[in-house]
C-alpha cells in the first residue's frame, strides 16, 4: 500500500513531512534489524563456539570470542600470562611459581629483571586471552563421526526417493488437475485429509508390515524410499494447484495435433511448471535431509545406512560439550541452508504464490 500523507500533516511544510516520513521509515527498518539480530542470535554463537577450543569453556572469566591464553616463554617453559593488579595498575605478568598465598611472576616486558613476588591468590586472577579461532573441533568431530558416509547415504536416499516422488506426484497432480472423473471432488478431499492424518496412526501396522514377520525390510532403505513412489499428498496438492492455473487452451491445441495425455503433460504442462516442480523437489530434499522419525524405527540397527540428521543425533552420546554440539549443529544444517539461499529467488516466491491459490 502506497504511503499517503496523513491528515494531520496535510498542510504542514514539506520539511516537516519529509522528516516525519524519514523517521517512520528509519524506525521500521531499525525494528526489523533488531528483530532479525535477536531472532538469529544463536547462529553466530554456533559459529563462535565451533571455533573455540574446549579449554576456554572451563575458565569462567574467558572471553566470548574464540581465543587462546597468552603465554610467555621463559627459560624454555611456557608460562601463562595473567592480569595482575599492582600498586601501579593492572600488569600482564606471566606466572612463574604459583603458590597459595603469594606467587612469583615474570614481567614479559623485562624478563631479565627476574621473578617478582606478588601477594595474593593467583587462582583469582584473570588469564590474558588473545583472539584465535581453532579448527580442532572440526577435526575431532570428523574423527568420531562417519560424516562422509552419512552425507553419501543422505544424498543417495534423497536422489532415489526424489525420482519416485516426483514421477508419481506429477502424474497424480496432472490427473487431479485435468481429468473429469466422477467423484473426483471426494477423492481430492481424501487427499487433503491424508495431509492432516498424524503419522502415528499408521505407525504400528506399517512397522509390523516392514518387520521380519512380513516383509523383513528393517535395516534397509526400503521403508524410507518405497512409500515415496506412491506420491506425497502435500506435494501433489501444491503441483495440482499450479497445473490448474495453466490455461487449458494449450492442452487443447496439442490434443488437436494428436498428442496423447502423457505427451501433453511432458511437452505442455511441465515446461510451464519448472518453478513449482523445483520447489516441490526442494521440499522433498529438505524432508529427507531432516528425516529422523523413520530412521529411528528402521535404521537404528544399521549404522552404515544411517543418514546425516539421525546419524549425528544418535552419536550425540559421544560429544556433549558446547563446542562439539555446535560443530554438529553446523554440519547438519549447512547444506539445507546453502540450498535454500541458492534457490530463494523462486522457492520463496512459489511458496507464497501456490498458497494464495488455495
Amino acid at each position, binding site marked *: 500500500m502506497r504511503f499517503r500523507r496523513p491528515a494531520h500533516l496535510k498542510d504542514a511544510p514539506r520539511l516537516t513531512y519529509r522528516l516525519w516520513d524519514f523517521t*517512520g521509515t528509519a524506525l*521500521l*527498518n531499525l*525494528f526489523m534489524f533488531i528483530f*532479525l539480530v535477536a*531472532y*538469529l542470535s544463536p547462529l553466530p*554463537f554456533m559459529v563462535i*563456539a565451533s571455533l573455540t577450543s574446549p579449554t576456554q569453556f572451563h575458565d*569462567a572469566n574467558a572471553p*566470548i570470542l574464540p581465543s587462546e591464553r597468552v603465554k610467555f616463554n621463559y627459560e624454555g617453559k611456557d608460562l601463562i600470562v595473567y592480569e595482575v593488579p599492582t600498586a601501579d595498575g593492572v600488569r600482564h605478568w606471566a606466572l612463574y611459581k604459583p603458590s597459595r598465598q603469594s606467587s612469583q611472576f615474570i614481567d614479559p616486558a623485562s624478563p631479565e629483571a627476574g621473578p617478582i613476588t606478588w601477594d595474593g591468590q593467583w587462582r583469582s586472577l584473570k588469564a590474558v586471552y588473545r583472539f584465535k579461532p581453532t579448527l580442532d573441533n572440526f577435526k575431532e568431530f570428523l574423527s568420531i563421526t562417519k560424516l562422509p558416509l552419512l552425507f553419501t547415504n543422505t544424498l543417495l536416499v534423497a536422489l532415489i526417493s526424489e525420482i519416485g516422488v516426483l514421477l*508419481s506426484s506429477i502424474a*497424480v497432480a496432472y*490427473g*487431479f488437475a*485435468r*481429468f473429469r*472423473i466422477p467423484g*473426483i471432488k471426494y*477423492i481430492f*478431499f481424501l487427499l487433503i485429509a491424508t*495431509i*492432516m*492424518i*498424524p503419522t*502415528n*496412526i*499408521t*505407525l*504400528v*501396522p506399517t*512397522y509390523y508390515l516392514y*518387520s521380519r*514377520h512380513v516383509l523383513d525390510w528393517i535395516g534397509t532403505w526400503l521403508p524410507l524410499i518405497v*512409500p515415496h*513412489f506412491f506420491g506425497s499428498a502435500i506435494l*501433489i496438492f501444491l503441483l495440482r494447484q499450479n497445473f490448474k492455473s495453466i490455461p487449458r487452451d494449450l492442452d487443447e491445441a496439442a490434443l488437436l495435433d494428436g498428442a496423447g*495425455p502423457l505427451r501433453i503433460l511432458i511437452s505442455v504442462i511441465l515446461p510451464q511448471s519448472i518453478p513449482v516442480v523445483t520447489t516441490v523437489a526442494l521440499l522433498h530434499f*529438505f524432508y529427507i535431509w*531432516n528425516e*529422523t*522419525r523413520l530412521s*529411528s*524405527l528402521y535404521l537404528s540397527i544399521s549404522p552404515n545406512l544411517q543418514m546425516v*540428521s539421525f546419524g549425528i*543425533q544418535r552419536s550425540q552420546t559421544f560429544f556433549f560439550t*558446547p563446542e562439539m554440539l*555446535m560443530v*554438529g549443529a553446523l554440519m*547438519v*544444517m549447512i547444506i539445507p541452508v546453502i540450498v*535454500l539461499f541458492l534457490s*530463494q529467488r523462486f522457492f*520463496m516466491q512459489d*511458496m*507464497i*504464490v501456490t*498458497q*494464495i*491459490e488455495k
Partner: protein
Amino acid sequence: MDIVSQGGLWSKIKPAKRNRRQQEATIGLLFLAPWLLGFILLKALPILAALIFSVTDFKMLSPETTKFVGLENYLRFFRDPAAWAGLLGSLRYFVLTVPLEMVVALVLAAIFTSERLKNKRLSQTLIFMTSIIPSTSIFFIFLGSLEYADRLIFRPLNLPPIEGFDLLLPFMALWSIGPGFLIMYGAMQSVSKEIYEAAHVDGAGPIARFIFITLPMISPAIFFTLVINLTGAFGGAVLLDRGYILSFSLSPIEGYINETMFIEAELGYASALAWVTFTVMMTLTILLFRSAKRWVYFPEEDEVNEI
C-alpha cells in the same frame, strides 16, 4: 453396449460422447493410480489394521498367541497416568506454542507489507531459513547456547540458570514460523488495494484497517496456518518436516506410543493409544473446520479446492 448398438444414428453420436467421457475418466484414474494405491496400502489399510490391533493383545515377540481382548486396551488407557500425561503434554504443546507462532508470524507479515521496509527479500529468507534447520541442529544449538545464555544474560541479571528443556519449546516454535509467515504475507499481498483505499477515504486508521480489512481478508491463510500447527503438535508435518528429537520427543504422546511399541513391544496397546490420539486430533480438526464457517472468509465457493 448391446442396447446402444441397436439404436441407429442418434445412439451412434451419444455413445461416442459417453465413451470419450469414460475414456477420459479411465485415463485420469490411471494417472491417479499411484496415489490411490498408496492411499489404500499405506493409509487406509494400516488405519483399519491399527483399529483391529487395538482390540487384541498383539505382542511383537509372540504374534501367534494373539487373542481378542475387546476394549481392554482402551480401558487400560484410562487407567494409565503416563498415557494421559503424554496426551495432555501434546495438547499443552499446541496451546502454548501455536498462539506464539501465529502472533509473531502475523505481526511480521503485517510489517512486511509496508513499502518502507528495505531489503525485504533478504529478511524474508533469513526468517524462513530457521524453519528448514533440522531438529538435530536446533537441539544441539539449544544445548550449546545454554552456556552463552547463562554467561551473557542469566548471570549478569542474577536470574536462576535454565532448568531442563523449558525454553526449548518456545525456541523451537519461534524458529518454525517460516511457512505460516509466508502464507500470511502472501495472503496480505493479494488483498485488493481498492478496499484499503475506500476505508482510508472513510477515515479508517491503520489499526482499524488491519483489524477490519486485513484480518478478515486473510482469514483463510490464518486458518490454514492453524491447521498446519495443529498437525505439527500431534506429530504430523504439513509443509516442512524437520524430523524429531529422539531423546526429547516434541510431541509427548508420540514419544509414549513409540516407547510402548519398542520397549514394551505391545503393538495392541500402542495401536489403541494411536487411535485415541487420532480421535482427539480428528475431533479438534473437525471442530476447527466447523468453526471456520463462522470466521473464515471464502471468496468463491465454486471450486473444490477450498478446504
